[in-house]
Structure formats: C-alpha cells, structure tokens
C-alpha cells in the first residue's frame, strides 16, 4: 500500500511569517498504531517548524530504522529525508552536515536504534558536536520488531507479555551529558507544551541538541507494570522548568513574571526563558544537571525539560575549519587545482 494524504485544506488556515500554513509542514498519513507516542512527536515537530518560520526545504530529516525512524515520512513533506539503516543515522547525518552546513538536520531515532545497535555512532556524534537535533523516541522497547525489551527499559519493568526486565536501563540523557552534549533535554510525547518549545530551542542551538522523548508504545509497552506507559510517565514526570524560546527580534514581554523565571540570553541575542521548578539546578552548569538527574532517578522521578546547554563549544565544522560556504556549493574553480599544479606535482616526483 502507499499512503498519500488528501490535499484538501481549509483556505482560512493561519499563516506564519513566511506565508506558510501548518499544512505546509505536514507529511504523509501516518501508518503507526493509533495512539502511538511517536505521532505526537511528529505533530510537535510540525508545530515547532511552523512557529519558527523555517523554510521546509532547509530541513533535512534523518532517521535510522524502527517505528520511530519511519516518522520522517509523516512530517515536513517538502523536506528531503533519509531513512537510513538501523543505528546508523548519526554517520549519515555527519556526512550530510559536512556537505552542507547551512541546513537544519533533524534526526529521529528509537531507543533500540540509539541505545543498542547505534550506541557507537550516537556517542561519537555527541562527541563531535554535530550541529543537529537528535530526538530519541524512547518507548523502552523495539516497536517495529514487536515489543522486545530495549536497553532503555527500566530494571523491573514488566512487558506486555509479562516478563520482567532484569537489566539496568541506559540513561541516554545522562550519557549525553557525560559525553559533553551541548544541549541536553528530556521530555514526554504527551506534553506538547513542553516539547514544542524544547524543539524550537534545539533547532536554534548551533551544536548537538539531544532530546530524549519518552514516547509510549501503545501496542507493546503501555501495560500496567511498564515504566514507559502513558500513566507511569505522567505520574512520575517532574519538569525542571517551563521553557520558551524568544527569537532575536521579539521583545520579552511581561508575561514572564520576575523572580520565578530565568532568562538565558543566547549568543545571537535570542533568549530562552525558563520558569524554574527545580531550585538547585542551573542549565549552564553540567555538574548541577548531572546531580539533578541522579537525584530524580534515585527518587523514581523522571526529570524533564532543558537539562543543560553550552553554546561555547565549537561544532564539527568549526573544529575542522571548514569554509563558511557549504562544501556542496563549491565549484570547479574552488576544487580542481588544474593542469599546471599537476605538472608541479609531477616534477616533484622525478
């Protein structure tokens, strides 16, 4: 079967600054199970891109393999996408990013795709500080292969089939922090109000932006006893702060009342406004983020929101001193040294 959405849309849909409607950011009809958390994340991506006035063709949608990795077909229909191989989205994105530093790379992956088969590539993408958004749609199981435990399933979590997971979970956000991730966040597919601004801030960030999104699998991992079910996550979630991204040109309005919020001014003049909930935590201090994450875990809470952000670390292109013009735009003149240079090389070989 092939799936194409009906083209009809209401003519009066609101438009963003570029004149696009939200429809222009949508993709094909989802084939995921009804109620799958991944679909909510797709919707949040559409909303974030619409609100950010992003030109759809300036985004490249990257993914590996899994239910989660199928989602790029369901949003940003005017963007190119690459549904690559299982666990290898980071390397394909690295190459794409090297070829053109000017696009927004929006990568999605699953917990199997990232924490098991793709762990090596994930770790190195963080380390290189690729300028990309890396979203893990984390359901604690392998959805596409019918519900096996993944490496992010919590110890003691009970699968739909009734088996109890005997292994400790890999904490992807903690790992990203440990590896020097420059934007580390955690969220829940069911919390659009938190997820949309986080996505906007992540796309805005000029380095590796990691968002671990708990995203229940209604078919295989939404039962009582599972620690990745809608109910469990809702009951155990604790937000660090509410967050909003205020772009450069917009004045911060008084909607944020003083004292309860913290403004984080970014290098380009934009601002992230955080309404702090956890008081011992500072999003610019990695140690404080690690401590908060550990404390939450010990108490069985899931800490969500922007955990940490560092704008100062150079990204991969800065590290490599690549020219500011995208490499894929360079022409013959920039690239081919020509016959006379080759003659000189020949002369040096005699």
């Amino acid at each position, binding site marked *: *079967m*092939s*799936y194409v959405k009906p083209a009809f849309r209401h003519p009066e849909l609101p438009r963003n600054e570029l004149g696009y409607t939200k429809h222009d950011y949508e993709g094909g009809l989802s084939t995921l199970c009804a109620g799958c958390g991944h679909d909510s994340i797709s919707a949040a991506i559409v909303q974030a891109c619409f609100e950010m006035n992003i*030109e*759809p*063709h*300036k985004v*490249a*949608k990257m993914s590996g393999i899994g239910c989660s990795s199928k989602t790029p*077909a369901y949003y940003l*229909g*005017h*963007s*190119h*996408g*690459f*549904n*690559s*191989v299982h666990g*290898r989205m*980071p*390397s*394909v*994105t*690295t*190459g*794409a*990013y*090297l*070829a*053109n530093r*000017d*696009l927004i790379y929006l990568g999605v992956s699953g917990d199997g795709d990232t924490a098991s088969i793709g762990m*090596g*590539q994930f*770790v*190195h993408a963080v380390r*290189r500080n690729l300028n990309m958004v890396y979203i893990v749609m984390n359901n604690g199981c392998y959805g596409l292969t019918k519900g096996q435990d993944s490496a992010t399933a919590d110890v003691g979590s009970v699968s739909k089939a009734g088996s109890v997971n005997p292994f400790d979970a890999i904490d992807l956000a903690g790992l990203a922090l440990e590896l020097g991730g420059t934007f580390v966040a955690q969220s829940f597919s069911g919390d659009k109000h938190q997820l949309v601004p986080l996505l906007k801030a992540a796309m805005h960030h000029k380095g590796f932006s990691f968002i671990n999104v708990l995203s229940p699998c209604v078919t295989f991992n939404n039962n009582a006893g599972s620690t990745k079910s809608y109910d469990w996550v809702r009951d155990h979630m604790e937000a660090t702060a509410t967050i909003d991204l205020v772009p450069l040109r917009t004045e911060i309005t008084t909607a944020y009342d003083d004292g309860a919020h913290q403004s984080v001014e970014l290098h380009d003049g934009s601002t992230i406004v955080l309404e702090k909930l956890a008081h011992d935590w500072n999003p610019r201090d990695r140690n404080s983020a690690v401590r908060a994450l550990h404390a939450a875990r010990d108490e069985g809470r899931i800490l969500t929101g922007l955990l940490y952000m560092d704008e100062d670390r150079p990204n*991969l*292109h800065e590290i*490599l*001193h*690549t*020219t*500011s013009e995208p*490499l*894929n735009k*360079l022409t*013959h003149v*920039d*690239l*081919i*040294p020509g*016959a006379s*240079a*080759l003659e000189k*090389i*020949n002369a040096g*070989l*005699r």
Partner: protein
Amino acid sequence: MSHTSRTNDFVVRFANVNGTGSASANLLFAKSIYRMGVPVSPKNIFPSNIQGLPTWYEVRVSEQGYLGRRDGVDLCVTVNPQSLVEDIRSVVPGGYLMYDSTKPLHEEMLREDITFLGIPMMQICTAEYQDPRQRLLFKNMVYVGALSALLNIEFGVLEQLVSEQFASKAKLIPPNIKAMQLGVDYVREHLPHPLPFGVERRDLIGDRVIIDGNSACALGAVYAGATVAAWYPITPSTSVAEAFDSYCSELRVRPDGTRNYAIVQAEDELAAIGMAIGANWNGARAFTATSGPGVSLMNEFLGLAYFAEIPVVLIDVQRVGPSTGMPTRTQQSDLTLAAYASHGDTKHPMLFPSTPTECFDLTVAAFDLADRLQTPIMVMTDLDLGMNDHLTAPFHWDDTRSLDLGKVLTAEDLDALPKYGRYLDTDGDGIPYRTIPGTHPTKGAYVARGTSRTRMGVYTEKSEDYQDNMERLTLKWTTAQSLVPAAEIHHSAVPTRDGMLYFGTTTQAAMEAADLLAAQGQPLDQCRLRAFPFGADVAAFVETHDRIFVVEQNRDGQMRQLLIAELGIDPHRLVSVLNFDGKPITADFITKSITRSVTRSTTA
C-alpha cells in the same frame, strides 16, 4: 647458474630492521638508478608491527622495462642478524651477499656458491660519529655508498638526491654524503669491484615519475572535486586518507585559512561509509578508503546505497584475507566480496587500476561514474600498488575537462518539469534524476530509503512496485556495462586461440610472462580488465579464444568466478593461474604455471 656480465638487469634485496631509518636509504638507492635513466621497480615486504621485526625491500632493475617482481636475488644487503640465515638462502647461486662484518659470520652460515662482501659498517660509523642514533642512521648511507661502487652508480647522482632530500635541512647534507663516501672508500680498498652486473646510464625513463598508488588515488580524489573523506585506519589503505589530507592542505586551503574540504577519522568503517553516503546524498563528492575487513563491515550500507541510489566511491586497497589475514601482504582477494557486497540482489561496479597513473585516472572516473550511475563504485587496488613506489606515466589533467555530476536537477529544472518522481526512468537507461536537499522550496523533495518505493518515491509494499524497481536497477546495470572503462586488448604477433586475462597489479608480471612464453613458442593474446561489469569487448575476447588463462592473486580464482557467472562461460575454457602467497606475483611463476598446464593438456 653462473653469472656473466649483465648490465641493468638484476635484483637487489635489502634486509633491514623495521624502524631503523633504512626506508629512506633504500629509496635513495632505487631513485639513483631511476635518475640514471634505467627502469627500476622497488617493493616493500614488511611486517605489521612498527619496530623491531625484519623488513625487506626488493629492487628490480630492468633494461627491458619489466616492472613486476622477479624471483632470484642477485645481491642481498643484510643489516639484520635476525633474518641472516634466510637472507643467505635467498641469494641465487653465483650471487652476492653484503653484510656488516663488524662481527664475523658463523662458519656454518657460509655458502660456497655465493660471494660474501663483508663491510664493517658499524665499526666505520662508530669511528666517525658520536651520537648513537647517527651511528645507526648513517650505517644505511654507508651501504648505499658501497653499492654505488659495486654497481657503478654515479656518485654525483646520489649527491644530488641527498641535496634535494635535505634541501630544507642543509646541515644534514655533508654528513650524509660523507657516510656514502666512507662506503665507497671501503669497497675501493677491500673488495672486488665492480660486480659482474651493474648500472649503466640510459635514457629509458622518458617523462615517467615515481609514486605509490595510494597517493595517486588521493590526488585523483582531489582532482575529482571530492570534498568529504571519512575513513578508519587500516593497513594498507591508511595512506590514501593521509595523502588526501596532505594534498588538500596544500591545494584546498583558502587565503583566509578555511578549508574547502572536510576529513573525518570515523569511529569505525560503518560510520566511515555512512558519512560518505550522507555527504553524497547531500550533493558533495565524498569517498572512503579501506581494506577487506572494512569492506565486510560496510556491506549493509553498500546495499542501502545501491537500493536508495546514492553515489559513493570506495577505494579498497586489498590485502591478504580472510579475517585479518596477513595484513601487510598483498592480494586481489576481495573481488567477490566487493562485486556482490550486501544482502539481497546487489552488484557493484569495480575499477581495476594497474599503475599509480591509473589510480589517479580511475579514481576520477569512479567519482564521475558514481554520480552518473548513482551507485557505489569501488576502486580495487592492493597493497603492492598502494604502498609501493612505481615507475609510472606522469599525471595528466585537461583543463577543459568538466566533471560529470550526473542527473541532478536544479531549481529551474524542477520548475520546468510537469511532475517529478525520484525513481522515474525518463531516459530509458534505468538512471533516474536526483535532487539535492535544499534545492527548491516546494518541489523535488523525497525520502531516500532502503525500503521499497514507487517510481514517485513513495513508500510501498506492493510486489509489482518492488519488482519494477529491481528490474529498472538491472537496466541501469546494463547501462553501466557501456560506461565503465574498456579492457585493454593486445593481440600476439602470431595468431592464436589462447588468451590470457589479468588485471591490476598482475599486469606487469603477466605482460613479461607473455613475452617469455612467446619466445618459447607459446603465443597468447592478452586482455587486461579495467572494470566490472564486463563490457562487450571482454565478452568478445572470451568468445574468440578457446582457452583463456585467468591470472590473479587469490586462492579461489575470484575473477574467473565472476566471468563464469556474469558471461555464462563454459568453466572449462577458463584456466586459473593463481598466486596467493602474499608476495607480488612474478612473470616466472606465470610462465611456469602456463607451460605446465599446456604440457599437461597436450600430453593428456
């Protein structure tokens, strides 16, 4: 066998210890013969550790211009006590062995049928130099000097080469020349000289240069406009990436210091090819270089690139397998692996360079073919070609040449099209049109994927769509047959129904063997393959010969298997000649194998 006077036709073998600075002295020796206008072909035989184990360097000198390896060492220079017994054994009867006579040789090591040339190298250096490191390094220069006196190499040529080598560290020039002079003096006073074979100035080099194949591939990538390289260290391919880095740092840096290229040392080969694929998908020319174990790891990605139709260039510098094999020995044993790499129905074009010049040309061609065919192209070299210096035609570039970026649509193209489908076969050659991300705000976007899709690029699980796509890929393969470089065919002076087929680094030895066999009354037509899939020319060659010797450097006759499978040839007509000991094949081996096979079939 007794040696008569033989000018410009001999083999010298150096037995050194890895990491003692012998490599540059040995190269100096080879280069002095080149500068005297005489064809020379040096080959390293080295272990995979960095320091301490024996390494050998064989230099063949050939007035006739035969550049393949030749068995039979006429003069062995040994400064490595560890391999001494083996080295003494390697010399042909009537040959010579030069050794460091600072310590005497054991009686039982001596051979009656060769001449021992003792030079107290260490003693000479100890007397002359204070610094222990200098004593070790200059010992190498002492033997180079001694060789010049024994083989009639012009001392002025050596002086010139040393001055060029140390042009930026001029104070090293006099002591190096002094050390060579000490070697000359010792030979003149104590040893019979010159030897019955030696070098005489000629003008047989023409404009040829000396370079290794890996550097040539890297230079080819620069001239092909490659901007992204991703790699993981593995012998013998590492120096491809290193050379690309060094050429780019000279040729691709802007006045403001920023770079028109990006090189990433990946975390493994999976990531390396993933990066190369991602970059190519995004419109940059990108490549990776590896060897057999790396190609094994890249299999899944090669299947993806084949199916999603993404160009990528892979340079496979083959080494001995399977597994990690003998990592520092040569072989042509990744052919079937590369040809059909990955799961499902896949096949990939391969190019087979035989000289560094061709490494350059075929690397450029590989990028054009990858873009034209939107598929992985593998450049199959090997350790012998990649890591040894070869006498080769100078590199050539035509400034009017434009790169073939294949069927890529611009925003204007997209605006002019009534409809765009990523996998539509508009031209009937099986090759669809691709678009690069970011090209057009509303047209031309598609999702590249390994899962099946319609011609419009939409996900599908319909059997007809899947099959239709696979059939189009077959049509594309047929198109590839006419685009890849043609074979090189030589007809023997005497008409014959026997043929010989070879490729890559087997070429030099095979051409020499053909001469030897012709002289023995066994003429052979020759076909040098330059690419897979095989073109109509190869099919015709096979068609017009009754018996074809397929010469290759692996155990299983992999090229023969490909010929049988792809051209449907009767296996009996293809006779394998196989060398797989890890050393470069020799003309002598090929000649003997073919003679034996011919005798067997005529007496049977």
